[in-house]
């Protein structure tokens, strides 16, 4: 009985245990299992054989896989900077005194609330050549010759996907920047003005350095989100035309459906490295500048 009493009094020390148990079963355990599966020729049916790093070697020798790495990286290089640029501009604009800014913030955020899959279908209605809303508007306005198959050309399809992604999630980036802006004490700006600083130098020497926590959250979440992009592509191009918009996530799922279970798990681990490396590089590079403040 004594032990139970003691346990009851110290229960607060173990309150994180349910979280790690649940997370362990449904995340950590599969994660470690995945490392094992990636070293086999598992196809989900017959008994898998251990083949060492063969899946990883196959990956780097496959043209389609290398192409998909580049597509995924291009997508992120397009999305993450644009999201942060527009998110910051939106936040700076909506941080000022403005009639109805609360409503505008909510409206800008609204697209981020909706399933990216459904959002992709909505853009499909808009962009589809000949039938979509945009071609229709262009024709009515006399610009019928601008009715281009944006999603069907490999040169433009990826750009469209990037823009749709930025459009959908700019509100999310904006909210984090807004939160950061509100945490900057206003007397800092007053002091700077008294010392003769202009608007531009206040932005450069006060706002941006003090926004570092928001920048960190946004850049990291945008890197993770855009490198694992999936649903928007499923809805809009399904990886096409050809493989010109096939991201690594799509490749993983296709290999999985094709019963290359071991191989697709190996690709998933490679995607994990592709995500974690830039995140750590970014956090390392910017850590120094945080100390300088």
């Amino acid at each position, binding site marked *: 009985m004594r032990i139970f009493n003691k346990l009851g009094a110290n229960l607060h020390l173990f309150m994180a245990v349910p979280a790690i148990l649940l997370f362990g079963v449904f995340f950590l355990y*599969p994660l470690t299992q995945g490392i094992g599966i990636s070293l086999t020729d598992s196809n989900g049916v017959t008994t898998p054989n251990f083949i060492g790093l063969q899946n990883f070697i196959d990956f780097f020798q496959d043209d389609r896989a290398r192409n998909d790495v580049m597509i995924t990286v291009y997508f992120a290089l397009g999305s993450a900077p644009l999201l942060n640029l527009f998110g910051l501009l939106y936040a700076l604009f909506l941080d000022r005194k403005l009639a109805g800014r609360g409503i505008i913030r909510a409206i800008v955020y609204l697209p981020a609330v909706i399933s990216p899959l459904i959002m992709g279908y909505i853009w499909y209605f808009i962009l589809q050549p000949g039938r979509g809303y945009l071609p229709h508007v262009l024709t009515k306005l006399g610009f019928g010759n601008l009715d281009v198959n944006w999603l069907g050309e490999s040169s433009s399809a990826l750009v469209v996907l990037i823009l749709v992604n930025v459009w959908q999630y700019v509100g999310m980036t904006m909210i984090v920047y807004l939160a950061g802006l509100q945490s900057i004490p206003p007397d800092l700006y007053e002091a700077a003005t008294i010392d003769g600083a202009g608007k531009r130098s206040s932005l450069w020497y006060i706002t941006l350095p003090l926004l570092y926590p928001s920048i960190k*959250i946004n850049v990291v979440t945008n890197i993770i989100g855009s490198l694992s992009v999936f649903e928007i592509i499923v809805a809009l191009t399904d990886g096409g035309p050809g493989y010109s918009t096939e991201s690594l996530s799509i490749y993983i799922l296709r290999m999985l459906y094709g019963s290359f279970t071991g191989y697709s798990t190996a690709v998933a681990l490679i995607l994990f490295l592709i995500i974690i490396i830039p995140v750590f590089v970014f956090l390392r590079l910017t850590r120094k500048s945080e100390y300088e403040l």
Partner: protein
Amino acid sequence: MRGISVVLKAVIATFMVLISIIPFYVLIYLSMNTPSSNVFGGLLLVPDFHLGNFPEAWKVSKLGRAMINSLIITAGAILIVVLVSSSAGYSIARFRHKGNVTIFNILLVCLMIPAIIITVPLYTLMKDINGMNTHWAMILLTAANSLPLSVFLYSSFIRALPKEVEESAVIDGCTYFTAFWRVTFHFIRPVTSAVIILAGLGIWNNYGQAVFFLQGQDMRTVPLAVSMFFQTYGAQWNLMAAAALIGLAPAVVAFLLFQRYFIKGITAGALKG
């Protein structure tokens, strides 16, 4: 000068609103047009107000069943996430022993791992525990996926809260465990609402995992039902638009109801970490 800047501000604001809202308008417009081969044949801005698309899309797409599934999964998972991650966040924020620090670091690293990476081994696990096509397994799975972010939000918020909050209750005879549920839990309501919305929307919109683990027709969630409907009725844009509109309505309504708490909660939780 002043007049110009006011006009400029208004123009920018209008532009921002229009950009965000036009796709929704197109969807509403499409969903209210009469079915015809030339979808945008009529007026450019005013639909035909053919409301018959909605009941028809509702019936054919089986969205009713899907909404119930999504609701059960989302509500169940949110309940678990709030209970489990608030208590974990409390313990981590207040009692920094080795175990808690390790747990927090593991969760923080896993915040960076997208769920798709564990799809294959998870598939085997779900089969082994007979969790395929069940609500309970999907609830536990999606709750587990939302844990890193929620624990992070709770712990950083509680760290910023003065310790006196629960200490006076402890003097009055509570243990730290009961003090949390009786006292602290009420002080962290802003984060709870942010967690409910963030995790809730993620779970409601989950497609990448639902598509694998909920393959039975009666188990489909809203995103699955909409995408299935789109694959089957690809040509009937009006019905598709109506289905999409019905499918996204709950998320929009929930967001509009909670958005004030939401922005507050993010501000309070995210940036103190």
